[in-house]
């Protein structure tokens, strides 16, 4: 159904029924987007399995899909994003250019990968 696949961006919630956690994870992952997911369980094994298998940029355990904090990376996979993150330390990589510098103060030509004697 389209209501299960397409972003509506309004107060419309689609409810689905599954047999077990494995099916829940498959259903979660079977959309083109991958921003946030949430699992409510008291089973620590189920929680850790879901944390790794849910194909989203963010996963919440025993909390809803919303509630990002400023100091952790924020963003999604698949059609949600292009690999960059906002927030956290990662965004500082996005907005700066890395410059690499070598300073050779030996006074002689040293050839990288060639002058490798002990």
């Amino acid at each position, binding site marked *: 159904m389209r209501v299960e696949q397409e972003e509506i961006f309004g107060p419309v919630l689609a409810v689905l029924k599954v047999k077990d956690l494995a099916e829940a994870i498959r259903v979660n992952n079977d959309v083109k987007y991958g921003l946030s997911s949430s699992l409510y369980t008291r089973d620590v094994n189920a929680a850790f399995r879901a944390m790794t298998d849910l194909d989203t940029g963010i996963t919440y355990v025993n909390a809803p899909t919303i509630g990002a904090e400023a100091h952790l990376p924020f963003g999604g996979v698949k059609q949600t994003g292009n690999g*960059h993150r906002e927030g956290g330390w990662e965004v500082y990589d996005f907005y700066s250019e890395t410059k690499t510098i070598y300073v050779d103060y030996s006074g002689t030509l040293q050839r990288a990968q060639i002058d490798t004697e002990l």
Partner: protein
Amino acid sequence: MAPEFKNFIAGEWVAPASGDYFENRNPADWNDMIGRFPRSSAADLKRAIGSAQRGFGQWSKTPAPIRGQVLLRVGQLLVERKEDIARAMTREMGKVLAETRGDVQEGIDTAFYAAMEGRKLFGRVVPSELRNKWAMSYRRPIGLAGLITPFNFPLAIPTWKMFPALLCGNSVIFKPAEDVPHTAHLLVEVLLEAGLPAEVVQLVHGQGSVVGRALVEHPEVPVISFTGSTETGSAIGATCGKMHKRLSLEMGGKNAMMVMDDADLELALDGVLWGAFGTTGQRCTATSRLILHEKIHERFVQMLSDRAGKLRLGPGLDENADVGPLIHEEARQKDAEYVDIAKKEGASVAIGGRIPQGDKRLECGWFYEPTVLTGVSRACASSRRKSSDRCSLC
């Protein structure tokens, strides 16, 4: 007469070159006009870019810890103005006051985080393979960053982009969503009062298809950050790819909450009400699918319908309101259309699915009842498939 707002270009508040403006109205009461904002053109953007280049020349040479101190003052001013900005934000965007206060708080947190980062914008020194040689890297600013932001977090998302961009020594050109230009205006006022050199930030209001596009296509803007629809993001990505621009995209979601049979159902109920109906479902992380274990499905749907039916719709400035309006008429039409589609495809409306009737407070706003659709079945992810096709995972 509603006030007329200006762009901030080249260190001053200026009218758009065209003299054209658009209206900004309260989504909870379309008779309430907040102001008229510049419908800017490529000519305005050109001036902004020339100025931002001068701003970059100055700001990129300012030490990062000093840049951080400016952002610290930004955070402090946002603390002082939290309530005023939250109220202005609710008036133009619609979400309830508790949420717009949270939106400002996110900006405060982001400012203080950026301020700290000013003293630890670390590079690296690593051992060289050769004697008497140092090998290292450091971070340096890139240039002009073009920031295109959405309506749903009028302050927080601009700060997510702007504060790190500034801390890293870039100048910024800010193109906010047309639905929330007033909050953008207030944010730029704060930046200037905090002591940010005037040409480091440029605020250019207007349409994405005009100003946003010109920003993306301009060769002197090497960094673009966009939050919005996947469709627009794809078009931006194509342009930035050809021009070798650095691009950050934050786009659509179809976020699921899963509730297993061993879960604390009361906790999950509080969670889904907040996740699905907070911000009237207009967060990119909003819960739009609820995946229930079959053993608790019936019970949980009943619990959810009972509670969702008690959520109070109302103007966000009313402290008793739980859920505000949608952002505009098209958003409400889209919701109604999707509910119709769901019904045709065999889903049932457990609760909601209507424009509220009979409440005078809601008659002039874009309100829509919190809606729960049950009996939703899985379709294949690929829209190319016909609905009669079976998915291998089903």
